């Protein structure tokens, strides 16, 4: 039997940075292939190539022996490849049936044939094992059930290959079981699957073959029977740190007897984080590791007062933090947020205005809050120089004109001006070039050397390993590991990050 899908030596680079460096493999009909790899291994780029969202720089794809070059996602669907993405593209204000058939209603004249729609939708829903009637509004479903709806939508049109991207992150254990049974029954009918997941136990349980991607190349592959979790983890992580990092030379002030700078005591918000407790000392860089969706960003926002928590306490310098960001900035906390465009910058405002934004109260004069441009200018210029910010019009241009790296430096400059005691950095180097990254690392080290406590959230493991004094690991809203330099290893971090994934969560208190 020949392969359903053949991938041959795919290469793809973004702005000169190679993301896929010659990936090749085969998928046979009626098989389930597990695709694993760390953050940034190239999985999503590979999927975008398959789905027609991107085009490869070189290499070829063949579907059932014919050249497969999809123009867009619709073409991919027509060819018989359908996707279930991690973020759902569903409409909560429509019914299940309407979501399933939104662009493809069965009609007579102008009207939807309700009975036909209901019958077809019911069949699809039955296939994925959802007990709801087709006219249930989507908003009545739990996130896990919505995931099944998305899968049902992928089944419509009888695809030959279904790609499931992290389908189990929002599923409860019984829902997972149901999904696996569904995959097996469709497999028996001849449908092939690519199963992308961080839940390694699930991967081993469900898949026939396994493919490990690392740094844009196939690092390991073979029948699932030959794999153990240990081998998977080694294959995913196993690489020396070769990228350049500034050395972590100055270690935190060793005043173990003094009180911690930041203390988090049993913070809990149902459905988000559970029983988080840790401390951060002066001059310490504390890494926070975990897979995407582990609740790290949510924890950071909660610490900064952007999201509520139900129980537990957060203390800065021995004082309980309350109120919103304004109060916490005053208390000495700062947060560089994960998504720069969404809540990190005012893209249309000038670079200088962005830099000044958080420290305006300190420079405002009198009850009218007057600002003196003459006095502000040197302050901004000084901090801009200290972060090596490159602007063309002395910072008068809108921030959106700058490169990603310079935008991030501007945000960092904003928080440097506030002189925080504790700085939380959520993915500070996401989407920026190598040179700017290095400069940001240096800034982080300099800050710690000056006594600032840094909580560093990053999905780039090497970054965490190189910079942190201590690393905490989160999984599904809980802390699942703590490692102190020099006892870091990529394997142990990954194992902790996967903790709640292959032992089902309800077994935990």
């Amino acid at each position, binding site marked *: 039997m020949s392969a359903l899908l053949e991938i041959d030596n795919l290469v793809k680079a973004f702005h000169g940075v190679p993301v896929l460096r010659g990936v090749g493999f085969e998928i046979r009909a009626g098989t389930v292939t597990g695709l694993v790899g760390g953050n940034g291994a190239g999985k999503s780029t590979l999927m975008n190539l398959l789905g027609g969202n991107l085009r490869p720089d070189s290499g070829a794809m063949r579907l059932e022996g014919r050249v497969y070059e999809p123009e867009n996602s*619709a073409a991919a669907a027509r060819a018989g490849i359908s996707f279930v993405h991690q973020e759902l*593209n569903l*409409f*909560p*204000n*429509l019914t299940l049936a*309407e979501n399933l058939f*939104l*662009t493809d*209603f069965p*009609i007579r004249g*102008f*009207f*939807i044939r*309700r009975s036909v729609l209901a019958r077809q939708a019911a069949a699809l829903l039955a296939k994925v094992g959802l007990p709801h009637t087709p006219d249930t509004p989507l*908003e009545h479903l*739990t*996130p*896990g059930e919505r995931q099944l709806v998305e899968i049902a939508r992928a089944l419509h049109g009888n695809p030959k290959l279904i790609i499931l991207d992290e389908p189990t992150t*929002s*599923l*409860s254990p019984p*829902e997972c079981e149901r999904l696996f049974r569904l995959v097996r029954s469709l497999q028996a009918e001849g449908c092939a699957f690519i199963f992308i997941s961080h839940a390694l136990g699930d991967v081993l349980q469900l898949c026939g073959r396994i493919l490990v991607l690392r740094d844009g190349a196939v690092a390991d592959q073979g029948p699932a029977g030959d794999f153990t979790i240990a081998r998977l983890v080694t294959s995913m992580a196993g690489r020396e740190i070769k990228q350049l990092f500034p050395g972590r030379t100055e270690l935190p002030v060793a005043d173990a007897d003094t009180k911690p700078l930041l203390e988090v005591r049993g913070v809990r918000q*149902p*459905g*988000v984080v*559970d029983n988080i407790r840790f401390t951060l000392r002066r001059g310490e860089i504390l890494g926070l590791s975990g897979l995407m*969706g582990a*609740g790290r960003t*949510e924890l950071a926002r909660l610490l900064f007062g952007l*999201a*509520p928590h*139900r129980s537990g306490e957060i203390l800065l310098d021995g004082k309980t933090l309350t109120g919103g960001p304004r109060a916490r900035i005053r208390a000495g906390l700062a947060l560089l947020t994960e998504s720069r465009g969404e809540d990190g910058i005012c893209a249309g405002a000038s670079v200088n205005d962005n830099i000044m934004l958080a420290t305006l109260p300190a420079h405002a004069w009198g009850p009218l809050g007057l600002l003196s441009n003459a006095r502000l200018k040197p302050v901004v210029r000084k901090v801009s120089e200290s972060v090596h910010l490159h602007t063309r019009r002395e910072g008068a241009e809108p921030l959106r004109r700058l490169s990603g790296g310079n935008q991030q430096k501007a945000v960092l400059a904003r928080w440097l001006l506030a002189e925080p005691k504790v700085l939380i950095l959520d993915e500070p180097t996401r989407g920026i070039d190598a040179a700017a990254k290095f400069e940001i690392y240096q800034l982080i080290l300099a800050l710690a050397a000056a006594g600032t406590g840094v909580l560093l959230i990053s999905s780039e493991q090497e970054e965490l390993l190189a910079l942190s004094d201590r690393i905490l690991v989160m999984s*599904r*809203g809980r802390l699942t590991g703590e490692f102190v330099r020099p006892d870091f290893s990529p394997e142990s971090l990954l194992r902790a990050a996967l903790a709640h994934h292959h032992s089902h*969560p*309800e077994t935990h208190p």
Partner: protein
Amino acid sequence: MKRTALILLDHAVILLFAGVLLTFGFLAPGFLSWASLGNLLIQSSPTAVLAAGMTFVLMVAGVDLSVGAVMALAAAVAGKMMLGGFSMPLALAAMLFMGPACGLVNGLLVTRLHIAAFIATLGTLWLGRGGALWITETRAMNLPDSFLHLGSSRLLGIPLPGIICAAVLAAGNVLLEQTPFGRQLRATGHSAVAAAKAGINVRRLVTAAYVICGFCAALAGILVLGQLGAVSPKFGLNKEFAAIAAAVLGGTSLFGGRGAVFPGSLLGAALIQAVENGLVAINANPYLYPVVTSAVIFVAVLLDTLRQRLRAAATRRIFPETEAKAFSASAAA
């Protein structure tokens, strides 16, 4: 507890409506008579028709401020034609052509030139009003009695305006609920980006919503002509506010994606009319009508906002296993 709050908020307008009817029924005997209630429905028919059209535009998170002006412009053209010797069917046909044409202009301004719906339709409001005044030469134009006959005629014992209103609401409802167009419109209102991703032609859909709104404005113009028999400079003045208010009262969200033509628009229009009729029945100062009406609208929108916030809070979690706990927890908070 939070679930109960959501259910109550979802039915806030019916509760509000019942409250208004009972209050005025108590204060003014006879207010709850069948004749009076039937009259209420007929009187609210133009606003209900306008609100039905407005529902389509609000559904895609737009707004149409020009409906009152379109009513006036179409009525002025029809009036001029009638006085110029054209037959009534021809004049009516002209009105029904003008409405969608104006809607098309609005739709193109919004979807092709990317002008904010608010400002685009504010501009066409002035164009339309100016045009109507130009045609009528800023005088009240009395039309032949045939319009008044039309307004008071009955079909099978039911007043014609009621039949037209019912037909529009039924058609609008079928269009929104029973056709792919309607369902896609709703999806677009929830998220135009997601809708485009799913393969929906968002531009064409949004333009069509404005065309439908324009058509309903023209029909509402016919209904009002049937009631008044004349085109005055104030014809349709501020009707856009009544239409938006009625649609919003009927459960249509200003943020798009939520709402219904029936019973929403009728309910909203009838509620506004009931407040007005009730105030008449208790001999309240007529100048107070807009004050009470706007207070009712404010309360309804406040409730809608609370409903949205509760919904958003209910989905703010990332892991499923603590969901049941999360619900009770955030309700207690």
